[in-house]
Every structure is written in structure tokens, then in C-alpha cells.
């Protein structure tokens, strides 16, 4: 059992949790993630660690309500517990002095980019940050990111805050105005990461993305998180989650992320309507149908 020490919304539908997890906190490095399971009936979902306090034995996670599990998690509060949290998983971000680094954070992706940005800043890089969101509410961690950035730009799709447009519009400007950009790190929705990759590929600017495929065990055992990188199968949990953006096949990633769309929709609807009956007497519906004739 892992105790939630603090919980609070930082934007509509986006909540930050501080969780007691001493082993994970001690070992965490920027770019790594945890897998958690809320209760005995829960699924395992990967979430990037936003920050960790090794001495205090805590990690913090930023969670956006998307499907059933994230909605259920975001209904939890201080004092509640999470049944299973395992990590830190995945390879840490590569941190060195590159020179000028552009960080592109889309929506909740900003929280995932945050620890790496901090580490890159500490390593002596010049950090230019672009934060984007559909609207003002979805631009998160602006103050935290500003504190570790040499310049920070905000774009919103609807123009409700910062400049109206997409993060790639701003990035395109920077690619022209900046003499030399050594690295772009993009974390956000897959279409955003793909757009960033397409843009920087033309200019030959090294770009790294953090991928979020479907995942179960997180230790390489199941292979569910395989992504096509440079035409080869890679497992995001052990080979990633960060990959060279110019090598990633984003179309396959998007297609595979849609595998359970119907089931995810059903789960969420039933959860939202309070329909899920987990009584032990209830027959699981798949078994009512059964196999074909033997």
C-alpha cells in the first residue's frame, strides 16, 4: 500500500499527487516512470514521475483524467492509498551539456518534461521552453518551468493565453531565430510529438520524445509496449521511454494506442455512471458467451 500524502488539482482534470514511496524516491532519475494499480480489480498504468524527494521518501505524479483509471485516481485524496506502485522504470534521460535545448511541453506532458528540464538546466544548458495547451487551463507548471528556463513561451489553440497557435508554430520561429539548437525534447500528445519530429527533421536538429504506449508489466516481460524505432521493435519500458524522434514510427504508435478504444470507452462510461458492480456474485460477461463448438 502506498499512501497519498498530498493531492490537489493544478488545472481542471489535472491533479498532482505526492506519494510515499521511499525505495522509488531514492532511485529516481529524470525521465523515469512508475506503474501503478489502484486496487485489486485495477489495471496497471504507467505514469511519469514529476519529481522525487529521496530524503523525504516521496515521489510526485501529475495525472490527467482521461480514462477510467485516471478518473478514479483523480478522485483520491490525501490519506487515501494506492495498492501498487512500482519503479522507477525505464532509462533515465540523457543529461549532459548540449548547449541550447528547446523543451516542448504539450498539456500534461509538461509535467513529464519538468524533471528532465531541471536536470538539463543544472547541467549548464540554455533552456528555451515552449508550453502549449488547448486553452489557458491546460497550460500547467508555467511557474516551475519558468524558474528553470532562460526563456519561456506559451501557445494555446484558442488564443485564450499566450500566443494563439500550436507549439510547432513557436518552434518553427525558434528554429529560424536561434543560431544553433543542439537538442529538442518534446513531451505531449502523440500528434504533437510527431509534428515536432517532422519539423526538426527538415532542419536536422536532434530531437528526443518520451513515448506513452500501452504497457503492462514495465520490465520487458510482456512486449505490449513495443514501438517501431528505426524500423525495429523496441520496448518503451526497458529501451525507452525516450527515443530519437526522427526514428519513431508515430503512426504505428497511434494505431496501437487505439487497440482498446471501445473497451476504454465502456469502462469510463460505466465508471462515470456508477454502473460498475464488482460484487463477487456477478458473472463476468465474457464467460456468458463462451467458446465455439469443440
Amino acid at each position, binding site marked *: 500500500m502506498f499512501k497519498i500524502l498530498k493531492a490537489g488539482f493544478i488545472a481542471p482534470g489535472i491533479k498532482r499527487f505526492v506519494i510515499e514511496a521511499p525505495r522509488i524516491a531514492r532511485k529516481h532519475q529524470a525521465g523515469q516512470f512508475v506503474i501503478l494499480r489502484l486496487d485489486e480489480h485495477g489495471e496497471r498504468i504507467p505514469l511519469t514521475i514529476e519529481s522525487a524527494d529521496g530524503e523525504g521518501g516521496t515521489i510526485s505524479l501529475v495525472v490527467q483524467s482521461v480514462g477510467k483509471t485516471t478518473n478514479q485516481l483523480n478522485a483520491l485524496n490525501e490519506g487515501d492509498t494506492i495498492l501498487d506502485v512500482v519503479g522507477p522504470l525505464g532509462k533515465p534521460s540523457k543529461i549532459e551539456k548540449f548547449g541550447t535545448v528547446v523543451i516542448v511541453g504539450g498539456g500534461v506532458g509538461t509535467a513529464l518534461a519538468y524533471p528532465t528540464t531541471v536536470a538539463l538546466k543544472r547541467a549548464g544548458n540554455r533552456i528555451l521552453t515552449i508550453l502549449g495547451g488547448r486553452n489557458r487551463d491546460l497550460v500547467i507548471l508555467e511557474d516551475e518551468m519558468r524558474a528553470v528556463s532562460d526563456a519561456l513561451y506559451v501557445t494555446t489553440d484558442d488564443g485564450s493565453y499566450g500566443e494563439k497557435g500550436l507549439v510547432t508554430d513557436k518552434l518553427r520561429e525558434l528554429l529560424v531565430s536561434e543560431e544553433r539548437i543542439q537538442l529538442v525534447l518534446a513531451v505531449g500528445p502523440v500528434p504533437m510529438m510527431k509534428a515536432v519530429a517532422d519539423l526538426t527533421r527538415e532542419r536536422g536538429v536532434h530531437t528526443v520524445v518520451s513515448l506513452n504506449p500501452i504497457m503492462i508489466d514495465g520490465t*520487458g516481460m510482456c512486449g505490449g509496449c513495443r514501438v517501431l524505432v528505426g524500423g525495429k521493435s523496441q520496448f518503451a519500458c526497458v529501451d525507452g521511454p525516450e527515443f530519437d524522434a526522427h526514428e519513431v514510427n508515430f503512426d504505428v504508435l497511434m494505431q496501437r494506442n487505439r487497440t482498446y478504444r471501445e473497451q476504454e470507452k465502456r469502462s469510463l462510461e460505466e465508471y462515470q455512471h456508477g454502473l460498475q458492480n464488482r460484487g463477487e456474485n456477478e458473472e463476468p460477461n465474457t464467460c456468458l458467451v463462451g467458446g465455439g463448438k469443440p
Partner: protein
Amino acid sequence: MSSVKEPSANPLTLKERMKVPHQHMPEQPAELRVMNFTEVNLGYSTELARQEALRCLECAKATCVDHCPVGVKVKEFVQLIVAGDFLGAAAKIREDNVLPAITGRVCPQEDHCEGACLLHKKVESLGIGYLERFVADYEQRMGAPMAPDAPATGKKVAIVGSGPAGLSAAGDLVQKGHKVHVFEALHEIGGVLVYGIPEFRLPKQVIREQIDKMREMGVEFETNVVVGKTVTIDELFEEEGYDAMFIATGAGLPVFLNVPGEHLNGVYSANEFLTRINLMHAYEFPRYDEPMVDLRGRHVAVIGGGNTALDAIRSARRLGAEKAYVIYRRSETEMPARIEEVKHAKQEGIEFRMLTNPVEFLDDGRGWLKGARCVRMELGEPDASGRRRPMAIEGSEFEIPLHVAIIATGTSANPLIQSTTPGLKTNKRGYIEANEESQRTSRKGVFAGGDIVTGAATVILAMGAGRRAAKSIHEYLSTGEW
């Protein structure tokens, strides 16, 4: 044929014993069981067990024992069944095997004890696995008392991985008085027994009972710890004060075929498919959250011929697959699966497409699988594995319409521990190097065994490695000599 020299409880002569028919395992009818996930085999009754036990020839030289990777004293426990002392029989098995209810169900007995049974030359082998299962289940129902605690040695052993190798070592070590702590990466104890083997072959309840027994014996379990990530081997030695360590993390990464179309939706590794169903209970969606694609009325194939392949395709059948195929590039003779599983699969309407190999998975135009392009194979000369090498027949390509394909062709080494443990030697395939007898690795105090050393094998072979490691760890802790 050897004669009976010791006094025996068995009233029958050797000739009479040969005439007692082999007692078949009662099982759920195939047409019923394809609609549920409850266990196929129902277990022997007391009467069936005693009848079957009477068939044992009580050979002077019990080859069955020599062929058991953990050395279960088969003849002795069977004699105890004949004498009606079932708890005594269970205790006798436990001297060598801490998980009898599990091995009685999943061990490939035909490759070990039953394959070596002298009866096999004339009639059917003694049902040693069935008898083992019977006494283990009997013991569980009766709640047998645990063996007395050994005096504490004050030594601490960390076991990494709670699969068959780890559990087997833990059981032996705790009985020697060592403090044993088992780390498990997943949220449930049991490793492959829990995520890999389906409920209908090995009920989770049986595993839980065996684990509970080990807890009573004093073994500590800690879930959600990925050694190599959450904590390293060096930290366990230096900061947590362990005196020895046994690495039993299993094989790891699933191998894919490297053919076009493997990223289509609907193509799974057997590990993922089975983990969703077994560990995550996807067959009980939406009562459990983990989803599985809807298999009702679908065409599903597994690629491969081992137990994992059969577990996967039989699971698919239970989830409603209308057509369920085993696609294997060799012939049925070469299939590594247990004979009983092959029999059960056929009863359940699984179609065997032997000497067939997929060369491409086909896209339905929307990113989902619609079929596999396959070639027919023929067998040539034996290869390094001793099995005849399969070769593609030119111009034999054909398509099989499929909605889901499950790849069960093996695994490769998981690098998590090796990459974070300086000085731990691995072979060129990435598996940990360990002495075959002592299970010692290149690092002092670190032992390894099971699939992480040998590559994918069976539950009982992993348990054998666990036993050898426990013996060798005990020696090391007693003498301090490396």
C-alpha cells in the same frame, strides 16, 4: 524387471499390478470447459488414487526418482498412498519439493518420472503427477502441520523473483534456519505461475495456498520491487545486510518473428496475451479493468508449439474464438508441449496446423490484423537441438484469415539486473553465467538459476536449479568459503 524386496503394503503381485488399469484423471467435459476458466482436471478421489498407486512396481532401482529434477522420492510416497497414509506421502514429497500441488499439475512428467517408469515399457506409466497432485490437495484440505522450525542461523538471503526457481530455493533455505526475503517485480507472488499459466491449468488459489504455506514457514515476500531498478544487488549487500543472493528472474523479453506486419493491432506476444488474462484477469473485463480485444466469433492463431502456445490458444478459445489454430513450423512429434495439454487442446477443438510458418501478417487497411501469409515446411536433417530442421517449401505460400495472432516462439534474456550489477558475467545471449551444479555466478555471494541462466525451460527444471542453489547457498553461508 526388478522384484519387490522390502516389505510392502501392496498386496498385489507384480503381474497383478500390471493388470490394474491406469486410472484416468476425471476432467470437465470439453464442451463445458471451453466456456469457463475453471480447472480442466478435477483430481483423483481417494479411491482412484489408491487404485493407481497399486500399479507401482516398487522397483529396487527407482529410475523415476533419478529422472526427477528435484529428486522427489516417488516410490516411497506412492507406497505411503498404498498404505493409506496420505499426509505421510505429502510430507515425503515435501522433503524434496516445496510446491507439490503445482508440479503435480504442470510438470511434464512424461519427460521425467513417468517417462522413466518401467510400466511404460508394457502398459501406461504410473500416474505419478496425478498422485502427487492428489496428496498435495489432500494435505491442503486437511491443513497438515508445518515442519518444525530450524534454529535461526542469523544469515539473510535475498531471492530475486518469486517464480518456481525462487520459491523452491526459498523453501529449502528457510528450512535451514536462514532468514529469506523474496523480491517480486509484479504485484502478485508466483512469477510465471501467476502471469503465464492459466487458471484452467493451475488455479490461482492453489498457488496462493502454497505461498501461504511458505509464509507460515517464515519466508518474507515483498512485491513491487524490480531489482536492478528499485534497488540494486550491491545495495542489497551493502545497505540491507544480505549475506547471499539468488537471482531467479526468469527469461524475460518475448521474441518476435521479425516478419512484416507484427505491429498490427491484434498481434500479441504470448506473454502479453497471457499476462492480460492471467495476472490482470482480462477475461473478467469489465469487472476487472484490464481489457482484451473481443475474441467472440473471431479467428485466432498461436505461433509456436510449447506449453505457452497451448495455454494462449486454449485461453482464446475460452474467450469465444470460433476458429483457434496452433501454427507450428515442425510436426506434432517435435512439439515441446506436455502430451496432456495437446490432448486437451484437441478435445477443445483447437486445430493443429503443423509444418506451417507465417512469413507476413496482413493489414486490413485500418491497422488491424486480417490474416497471416504462411509457407508450408518440410523436415530435413536434425539440427543442433536434435530435432529435424524445418525448411520452407518453395512456392507453397497460402493465407489464413485471422483477427488475432499470438507469438509464442520464445524469449530472450532480460538485461535489468545484469546491466546494473558490475562484475556479474553473462554469456553471449545475455543470460547470467552460473555453475551448473553450485549455481554460483562470477560475483561472490550471488547465485543464479532458472530461465535467467538457461533460457526458457520448465517449472520443474527451474525448481531443480532453485534446490541446487539453496544447497550451495547453505554451504557458502555455513563455511564462508567461495
